[in-house]
């Protein structure tokens, strides 16, 4: 049985301050004009009434991380005999992310299927994932770009979260989702919230009702495969794409990376940094050949991966959480929903006999 607590709006900051004693705490606050998950700072205003510009992706999947530090050392007897000492930098400590949205938290479940496979878990991801807790805030308002309901989710979806916070009249109803989440709900600042459950449920229903009409994407995987070789289709839908990485880097479920080594003198580091399939370099081969030479090929991959290839190998789960950031932040106004629907509706021209 989940633990249900209530916190007054005014107590949110003191509670986070409490949590910050044991964990790194991230909460959304403004940096310039961008609303970002930043280390909790009591001096800074926490902004919870709108979705953040950027999902809390960096908390588990840093923009770049130093996987390994390495040092070369020479044998003084024979300077050309070189020894390499390498040290892995496994992340330590625990993190609490406060104010993520259901779509944000759910995004990491797409990562999990890839990075936490039994055969080959990614130890860096694993270490952070295990120790990062999400206190997710159910949405109270919906934006034009929201479409979580199309991808089997809703504005109060607790998937991937540890605690679900539902905004009620004067505060938040906190429901534990995981065991670890339950442990977070022991503060004196919290009171039993069972009595407010009905109010919260009503709010959730209300919000769910205000979101755009859902679309059935069941056919998306096969329909997208059907247009795989139709480059004319992809050239048309990608015409306005600028090939930048804004959509990918703001996406809560995009998990691709690149690995580079940087050395200075006798020391070096192995970096893992975000990469994106919109970039020509992403598939560039050493020979100079590029299997995805144009933006049409690349956008096809992004849409196809999320709505077809990923679901095909992961039990039908679409690798998109419907947050709409790719739509909102696209400098060219590309709407991924439009592309998927277009593919579903696409009727190949009749072949003349």
């Amino acid at each position: 049985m989940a633990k249900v607590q209530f916190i007054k709006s005014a107590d949110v900051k003191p509670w986070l301050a409490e949590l910050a004693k044991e964990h790194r705490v991230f909460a959304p606050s403004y940096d310039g004009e961008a609303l970002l998950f930043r280390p909790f700072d009591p001096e800074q205003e926490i902004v919870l009434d709108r979705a953040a510009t950027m999902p809390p992706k960096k908390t588990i999947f840093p923009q770049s991380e130093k996987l390994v530090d390495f040092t070369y050392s020479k044998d003084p007897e024979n300077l050309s005999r070189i020894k390499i000492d390498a040290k892995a930098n496994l992340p330590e400590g625990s993190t609490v992310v406060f104010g993520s949205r259901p779509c944000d938290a759910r995004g990491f479940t797409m990562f999990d299927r890839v990075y936490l496979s039994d055969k080959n878990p990614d130890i860096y991801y694993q270490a952070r994932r295990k120790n990062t807790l999400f206190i997710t805030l159910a949405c109270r308002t919906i934006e034009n770009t929201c479409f979580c309901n199309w991808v089997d989710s809703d504005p109060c979806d607790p998937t991937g979260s540890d605690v679900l916070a539902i905004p009620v009249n004067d505060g938040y109803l906190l429901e534990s989702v995981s065991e670890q989440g339950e442990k977070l709900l022991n503060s004196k600042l919290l009171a039993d919230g069972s009595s407010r459950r009905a109010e919260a449920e009503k709010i959730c229903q209300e919000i769910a009702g205000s979101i755009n009409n859902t679309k059935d994407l069941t056919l998306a995987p096969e329909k997208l495969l059907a247009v795989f070789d139709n480059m004319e289709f992809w050239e048309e839908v990608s015409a306005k794409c600028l090939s930048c990485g804004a959509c990918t880097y703001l996406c809560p479920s995009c998990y691709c990376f690149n690995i580079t080594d940087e050395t200075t003198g006798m020391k070096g580091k192995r970096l893992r940094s975000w990469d994106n399939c919109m970039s020509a370099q992403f598939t560039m081969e050493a020979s100079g050949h590029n299997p995805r030479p144009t933006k049409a090929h690349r956008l096809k991959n992004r849409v196809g991966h999320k709505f077809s290839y990923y679901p095909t190998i992961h039990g039908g789960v679409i690798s998109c959480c419907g947050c709409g950031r790719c739509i909102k932040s696209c400098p060219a106004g590309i709407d991924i929903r439009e592309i998927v629907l277009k593919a579903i509706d696409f009727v190949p021209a009749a072949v003349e006999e």
Partner: protein
Amino acid sequence: MPVLKGKELRIVGFLCNWCSYGGADTAGVGRFNQPTDLRIIRVPCSGRIDPLFIMKTLMNGADGVLVSGCHPRDCHYAEGNFYARRRLEVLHRFLPILGFEPGRFEYTWVSASEGQRWQQVVTRFTEQIHKLGPAPKIAGPEASATLRQMEAVL
């Protein structure tokens, strides 16, 4: 990299091979004493000096960057320093917007015969940099806001 603590600052020079590098040689041959801070990178022509090298050097933490080429019209490659002059002047005027003091970067012309002038240029520039003191340092990746906080907690 080793900078003599308290004595030297990190000053990098980009010199064209034909005139200024030769001028620095002439100063050496003439035993014209100079401050020891400057490290010279030899390039064929001041036209080869992409202003981005200078930005990169400053970004990497240099305290001062000095560029010297052939006097205008004396370029070994006829036109290199004419291009360099425009590009370096633009850079010189641009740097303050980033918060770098304008005097952290200077460019000038010294011919292969001007050993004495080279001595004066180096001395003057080194003094200028010492007056400014160490350049402001950019927070490294480890200190980026997110990680900064993380470390504080750990």
